[in-house]
């Protein structure tokens, strides 16, 4: 079971109070983009063993979206951060590097 902390309202709760929203930090390619970009955006998702970044929504609480960094094998949550960011904050990435040296996720390390 995941224990997540909503960065919006500060509530620390288990995952049934939240709803997963899939992979984080996707760049949308819509009308006018190349077929390769669109196909990549629409279908291609990371399915890592280890460090993963996801979107979550505090569905039963404040109702807001946020981001979470977690490990898919141990379910350890490294941290949560606001939805209004394009990439994980530096301090969180440093924290993950300490716990999982050499991790990679898409273009992030």
């Amino acid at each position, binding site marked *: 079971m995941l224990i997540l902390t909503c960065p919006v309202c500060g*509530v620390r709760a288990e995952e049934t*109070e939240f709803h997963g929203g899939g992979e984080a930090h996707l760049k949308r390619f819509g009308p006018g983009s190349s077929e390769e970009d669109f196909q990549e955006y629409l279908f291609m998702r990371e399915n890592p063993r280890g460090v993963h970044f996801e979107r979550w929504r505090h569905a039963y*609480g*404040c109702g*807001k979206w946020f981001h979470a960094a977690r490990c898919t094998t141990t379910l350890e949550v490294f941290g949560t951060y606001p939805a209004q960011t394009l990439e994980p904050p530096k301090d969180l990435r440093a924290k993950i590097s300490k716990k999982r040296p050499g991790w990679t996720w898409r273009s992030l390390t």
Partner: protein
Amino acid sequence: MSSPVSALGGASFSEGIARIDEVALQGMITLRGDLSDPVVQKTLKPFGDGDLPAAGEARIEADRGLAWMSPDEMLVLCPYAAAAETVAALQEALGDAHALVVDVSDARASFVVSGPQARDVLAKLCPVDFSPAAFSLGMFRRTRMAQVPAAIWPRQDGALQLICFRSQARYVFDLLSVAAQAGSEVGMHVQG
């Protein structure tokens, strides 16, 4: 003119380890807007006794007060009969501020769970730490109650009060009644 009725007509359950009472007609007004806006804050302050609840908090006395729902939503509690005039007063006070005020009294139902084992009854249904130390007077928690959303706060009299959607009132009442059935003591947070 028709007279308003609560969802379950004031249902109650008392043959178990805690007492459950439906709260008859509670006035509830949702204010959506930027809670950091000075105009919004000034408008809301009188309802919270001159003070605004921070995240996860409420300032509720009996049937009046404020509860923090989310960064852009505050719940205003008032007597049922005063809801319409309170909405008008809020809208007047907000003026041109970007905000939405809606009377949701009839869209919700409210219950009081009382008795020494009230916290245990709710703890069976919600993924929340209901120990008196972790959930004390002045706090307000929106969470999941079995399969539906609910918002819970401790009252001055030691009981816990919750609100849920009106359409789910029967489900919530049945849930609470089963969780409070006789012989189902847990003994985690027995009070008094």
